[in-house]
């Protein structure tokens, strides 16, 4: 009979290089699931948010209900949101995605709408005077000018989604949250700490990446600053 190994795993230490090297596969899978869930949700949210915001801008009557519904959705705590979707989606990844889409949608609609509303009336009139139709006005003038506000919303939505994915652990689709959840049940300190730190790293990396995208997409703002 061999003696039990006396490494940091056996001693259940917070920082454990042994954990990172032996559980590399598990960590990588969890990170990938985390990225997939976040990416799909935020993209779906964006696809839905743009037409909603444009509609709310065009028809004044639509703005009140759209903002009201998004406020109500945003107030519902994440765990309750996932639970309310349980009868619809069952224990699946779509349950987590649907919940996250609703949150991203809320943040994005509000920000895009604020950006569209901030387009100066003179700019719009000038475009119309140059013969721009409503569609071209929207695509070539209004949406580009609303881009900084929209990107700010996208960054907040993405960072929030990265953090909220962890709650998906309740249905087994929580990316790194799964590791935190199982680490809690088994009192596995190294796993909980590693997964938590990775969550924050993903959030910060996504934020920096989107900031870079924003810089590339809005060159006119860079010139104004210089």
């Amino acid at each position, binding site marked *: 009979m061999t003696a039990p190994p006396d490494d940091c795993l056996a001693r259940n230490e917070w920082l454990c290089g042994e954990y990172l090297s032996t559980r590399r596969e598990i960590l990588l899978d969890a990170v990938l699931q985390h990225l997939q869930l976040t990416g799909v949700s935020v993209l779906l949210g964006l696809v839905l948010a743009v037409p909603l915001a444009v509609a709310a801008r065009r028809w004044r009557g639509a703005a009140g209900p759209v903002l009201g519904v998004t*406020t*109500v959705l945003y*107030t*519902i*705590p*994440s*765990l*309750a*949101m*996932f*639970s*309310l979707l*349980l*009868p619809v989606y069952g224990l699946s990844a779509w349950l987590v995605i649907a919940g996250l889409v609703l949150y991203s949608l809320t943040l994005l609609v509000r920000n895009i709408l604020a950006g569209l509303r901030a387009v100066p009336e003179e700019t719009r009139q000038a475009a119309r005077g140059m013969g721009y139709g409503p569609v071209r006005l929207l695509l070539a003038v209004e949406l580009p000018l609303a881009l900084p506000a929209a990107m700010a919303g996208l960054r*907040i939505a993405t*960072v*929030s989604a*990265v*953090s*909220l994915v*962890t*709650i998906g*652990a*309740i*249905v087994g689709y929580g990316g790194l*949250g799964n590791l*935190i*959840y199982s*680490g*809690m049940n088994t*009192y596995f*300190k190294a796993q*909980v*700490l590693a*997964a*938590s730190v990775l*969550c*924050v790293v993903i*959030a*910060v990396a996504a*934020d920096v990446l989107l900031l870079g995208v924003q810089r590339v997409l809005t060159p006119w703002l860079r010139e104004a600053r210089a």
Partner: protein
Amino acid sequence: MNTLSAAWDWLTSAANWSGEGGIGNRLGEHLFLTVLCLLLSCLIALPVALVLGHLGRGGALAVNISNAGRAVPTFAVLVLLLLTPVGRHGQWPTIIALVLFAVPPLLTNAYVGMRGVDRDTVRAARGMGMTGGQLLWRVEVPLALPLILTGVRVAAVQLVATATIAALAGGGGLGRIITAGFNLASTPQVVAGAVLVALFALLVEGVFETAQRLAPQWARRGAS
């Protein structure tokens, strides 16, 4: 439709309202945690924000702390606290995590409110011979009140949400009805718990909304 009527049956059956794990007790726990932690975080965040705002220092900290708070998963903090020695002291990990996540919106909103006070007004008050303390309490705080209250409202809603997640890490409150439902594989109970949590959160939001509507005109500026 079946799930909804089953959830309704679960909510209306008297047996689910009484006892240690009953709705009544869980509701009390949730309310207690929310109110206690809101008071604690106001006591911690507001003095700091008011002093920093009055002096015009530490702006980067006050603003960035909100972004940092968003990037750190609530659930991760709860579990990390649970595994530290603090975790052996009953409700304390939950209370600490709740306060940690309620402080950023309070701090940021109060600071931004204080700095948003018209500089000419501040100069006029100084010119009238007001001391620092008088300036703070008679000019800056009243004018910053709408945003301070918005911060309290955001923090309160955040607290309700965080207290729900605390149930995942063994804390009390209405979230326990949801987690118990998941453990029993009882979809009606999960939905019933979620409805209770959602209603509680909307109620808290509604109370602050009404309070801001009823407030005098000058205190309403930040309400939207």
